[in-house]
């Protein structure tokens, strides 16, 4: 009881935080960056969205590039086939 014990009291949280942080700067986080899954957004019911809600605006911001890539009229013919898309067109059929 002793130095060793107090050291571990200090060292453990340090180890944890280093493990979870590793990089401090935002740029360094980019290495294992994920792309936003914007397909999920397309499946949402737009009439229920509140466009002035910051959460909604933030999501639109994240997906604006993606949204522009996919022209709705090309939906059936283009080859961007991924799972999110399939979900989306299923829902389209009910309209």
């Amino acid at each position, binding site marked *: 009881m002793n130095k060793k014990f107090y050291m571990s009291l200090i060292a453990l949280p340090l180890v944890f935080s280093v493990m979870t942080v590793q990089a401090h700067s935002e740029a360094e986080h980019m290495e294992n960056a*994920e792309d936003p899954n914007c397909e999920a957004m397309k499946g949402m019911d737009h009439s229920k969205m509140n466009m002035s809600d910051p959460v909604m605006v933030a999501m639109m911001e994240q997906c604006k590039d993606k949204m522009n890539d996919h022209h709705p009229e090309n939906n059936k013919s283009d080859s961007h086939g991924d799972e999110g898309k399939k979900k989306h067109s299923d829902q389209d059929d009910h309209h």
Partner: protein
Amino acid sequence: MKFIKQTSYFKHLIITLVTLFITAIAFLYSGLYSMGADDPHYDVTTWALETLRESSIARASGDIQVPTDLNEPKRLLKGGADYNDMCAGCHLKPGTNETDFTLGLYPSPPALTKLTFNMSDETAYYQRNFWIIKHGIKASGMPAWAPGHDDERIWNMVAFIKRLPELTEEQYQVITARGKSSSGHH
């Protein structure tokens, strides 16, 4: 007569205090205390520690100036990405109910996905979260994030945490993704 009584009273008091002090020191060296994180405190100890924590934070955070633009979508995006990288392992994200950290740490990190805003004073709520993130909480797993992260980044996370409990898994993913290719935010 009265004088004699008083001196013996003080003598007893001092002997008692010295004995208590020596016992306390002896206890520290005895190794009898169980230090394991898997051995919870007595209720009274938990109460004492939580009261100490809350009074201390309330006092220390009372003068913090809260930015007026915490509702900015940009803050949610920056704070969300940082939260996902640095905090979700301990404080969870929508769709996860436990991690090794929530199971093993004592005190256990609260699930910020479930901790809805329930303080009557919104300013105090913001001040408290900002202070906790910036300074951490002593003798718990909660690190101080001030080293390496400026106040703005911390406010972004404060803003994000406020909305976190309402987010679905999909919303969380879109908001927190840094996006390899997107030129959006850095």
